């Protein structure tokens, strides 16, 4: 009896496991032609949710037979984790309007993405909308697996009140060169106006370099990516200058080595932050904000920055892909982009934004600086093993720059060597 019970239990367990493993996916050829209801995911940014719900309502009014449901991306440490988990479970929405380009190679490897280039008008629509900026979003097989949707060019936001408190001119802050930036930071902290001049997270998360190292590197290097032509670019004069600059900020306690449990700029603990235009709307009721470009060694104009771009992507769990593609085009149309800009202050990935939406920038002059910066943005490299590569870089950065446990030159050299090893390991699938 016991033996039979044990066998029965084992069969049940194995059947359960087999059922779980035997998940099915929609047939790509059928799904590409299919129309019907779909679900889209939005980020949890309040302004984006507001735009997303209005966009979906407009679509549903015109297409009652292809109903779209909008939801916020399921909770997770990051959207990428939540999306990755749902790809594996086969529960992704048809579209997600918050896909990090750094995660696209991973999602691709998981067979989680629909190649948008495979739609008859896919290439033409994506390249036509984004212009020259779009090419850096192509995957290594030459296809687009993401629609470059909106950027948040990273700039220096500063608290005018704290600058004034420190005796600095809030309308003309000296932040262009490393020397000026450090002097201003020392004044802010030593005067007691702020606990920190700037307070990016010093944690080991793979994506943190996008808010300290990468904008500064893009500016100092004249627009280089972390990796170009299969080779790391940061063990260079530009990379070493950036690392030395940030090391000084940490060594002189102008930037704390401890993570702030909240929003340091909003709480008045830090006088500056490296963030995109999304933050302007978030701070408008609490902080009098000023905007300045990311500093460089010599302070020259026309500098680049990190895009902090988010793409829209279609997922392989989607059964009604024809509807999803139409919704994607509808949501990224010129009219919807204007509404998105109006609602969120984030920059649609289109060229020459100020000429396309002159009314908005006339009404909101602070955003014009971001629109100008959006013309000169650098994206994360679209290479296999992208997250591994960023994690490797971050580990050396925290060791050498944040905590000074080895020289910054050694840190960059080791990171470059390790990342070269990773690039060789992942290989070029093309």
């Amino acid at each position, binding site marked *: *009896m*016991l033996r039979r*019970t*044990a066998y029965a*239990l*084992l069969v*049940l*367990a*194995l059947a*359960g*496991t087999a059922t779980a493993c035997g*998940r*099915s*996916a929609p047939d790509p050829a059928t799904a590409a032609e299919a129309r019907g209801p779909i679900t889209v995911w939005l980020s949890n940014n309040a302004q984006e949710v507001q735009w997303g719900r209005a966009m979906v309502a407009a679509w549903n009014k015109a297409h009652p037979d292809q109903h779209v449901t909008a939801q916020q991306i399921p909770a997770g440490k990051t959207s990428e*984790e939540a999306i*990755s*988990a749902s*790809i*594996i*479970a*086969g529960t992704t929405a048809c579209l997600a309007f918050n896909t990090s380009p750094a995660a696209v190679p*991973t999602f691709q*490897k*998981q*067979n*989680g993405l629909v190649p948008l280039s495979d739609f008859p008008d896919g290439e033409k629509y994506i390249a036509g909308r984004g212009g020259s900026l779009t090419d850096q979003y192509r995957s290594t097989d030459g296809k687009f697996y993401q629609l470059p949707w909106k950027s948040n060019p990273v700039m220096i936001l500063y608290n005018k009140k704290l600058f004034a408190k420190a005796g600095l001119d809030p309308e003309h802050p000296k932040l262009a060169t490393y020397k000026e930036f450090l002097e201003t930071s020392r004044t802010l902290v030593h005067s007691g106006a702020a*606990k920190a001049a700037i307070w990016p*997270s*010093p*944690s*080991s*998360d*793979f994506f943190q370099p996008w808010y300290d190292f990468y904008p500064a590197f893009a500016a100092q290097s004249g627009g280089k990516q972390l990796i170009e032509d299969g080779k790391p670019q940061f063990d260079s004069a530009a990379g070493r200058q950036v690392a030395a600059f940030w090391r000084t900020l940490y060594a002189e306690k102008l930037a*704390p*080595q*401890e*993570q702030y*449990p909240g929003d340091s700029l909003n709480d008045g603990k830090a006088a500056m932050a490296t963030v995109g235009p999304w933050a302007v709307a978030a701070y408008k009721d609490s902080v009098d904000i000023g905007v300045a470009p990311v500093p460089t060694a010599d302070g020259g104009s026309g500098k680049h920055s990190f895009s902090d771009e988010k793409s829209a992507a279609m*997922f*392989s*769990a989607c059964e009604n892909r024809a509807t999803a593609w139409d919704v994607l085009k509808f949501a990224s149309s010129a009219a919807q982009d204007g509404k998105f800009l109006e609602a969120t202050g984030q920059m649609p990935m289109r060229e020459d934004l100020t000429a396309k939406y002159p009314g908005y920038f006339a009404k909101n002059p602070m955003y014009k600086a971001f629109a100008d910066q959006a013309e000169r943005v650098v994206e994360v490299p679209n290479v296999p093993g992208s*997250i*591994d590569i960023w*994690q490797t870089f971050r*580990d050396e950065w*925290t*060791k050498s720059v*944040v*905590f000074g*446990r080895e020289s910054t030159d050694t840190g960059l050299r080791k990171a470059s060597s390790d990342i070269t090893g990773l690039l060789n390991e992942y290989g070029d699938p093309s």
Partner: protein
Amino acid sequence: MSVNLDAAPGAVHTSGAAPRGKARRGLSRAGALFVSPYVLFIVVVFAVPLVYTVWISFHRFYFTAPGTDIDSPWVGLSNYRDVFTDPVVGQAFLNILIFLVINVPLTVGLSLVLAAALNSKIRGRGFFRAAFYVPYVTASVALVAVWQFLFGSDGFVNHLLGSHAPDPSWLVNSHLAMPMIAVFVTWKQLGFFVMLYLASLQNVGKELYEASAMDGAGKVRQFFSVTVPGVRPATTLVVIYAIITGANLFSEPYLLTGGGGPDHASTSPVLLMYQKGIEQGHPDFAAALGVVLVAFVMVVSIAARKLTERGD
């Protein structure tokens, strides 16, 4: 002694003889029925994933969307070689050893002393018993906020210490981060272990205390000569449980030190499994690390058991 369930109602009797075959079969069926949900639970939730984890650890594997036909080739010990040659893994196990060296003796010592105190007739005994148990039943996230309020660089303790405060501060100091986590976890879990010891103390005969008192033993001597040997089985349980929970450390370094910082000084193997398996998409590496961790916990637990049961 056995109970004859086959007898007529009201005629249940006991006897020293073995039950007849039919009765034994009846018992077996009933027993199997009662334990089957738990056996099923164990098989589905623990056994199958464990076997699958071991399988993954010997293959090149990554998670994919449903219906994807992927090749997961056998790679032998390759994932284990990656685990053993990754310096962060070594650091993570060293961190756990530091954690256990601080946490386990502190847990055993404090919980036993507190349990002995709370077992005696003191004023407000109920209040103190509840007070020590509250952190255990409070969410880690809330407790982390308390700890950051106390030991953050701008926290209460540093305000008290002034210029004597450590630099870098407690939670970002590579020498202090792991000990701080060990102390935090000790404090958080103390109530549970005090409760285990309190239960065990009920079994220590009062006559032993009376006899030792008549022999002239004071409170301290009684503690070491009667209480400590009397609760030895509980000590074994406490030590092994503390080792297992310590080796599974995740949320404290994740929340308290920003995901293993500073510079991996508080990274734990489980946190690393999460980072490698979930964040970086290497479940094969994470599976091999998990198997190594299970082996590590077994070895340390067996060694600890031998130590605590020595002299029995």
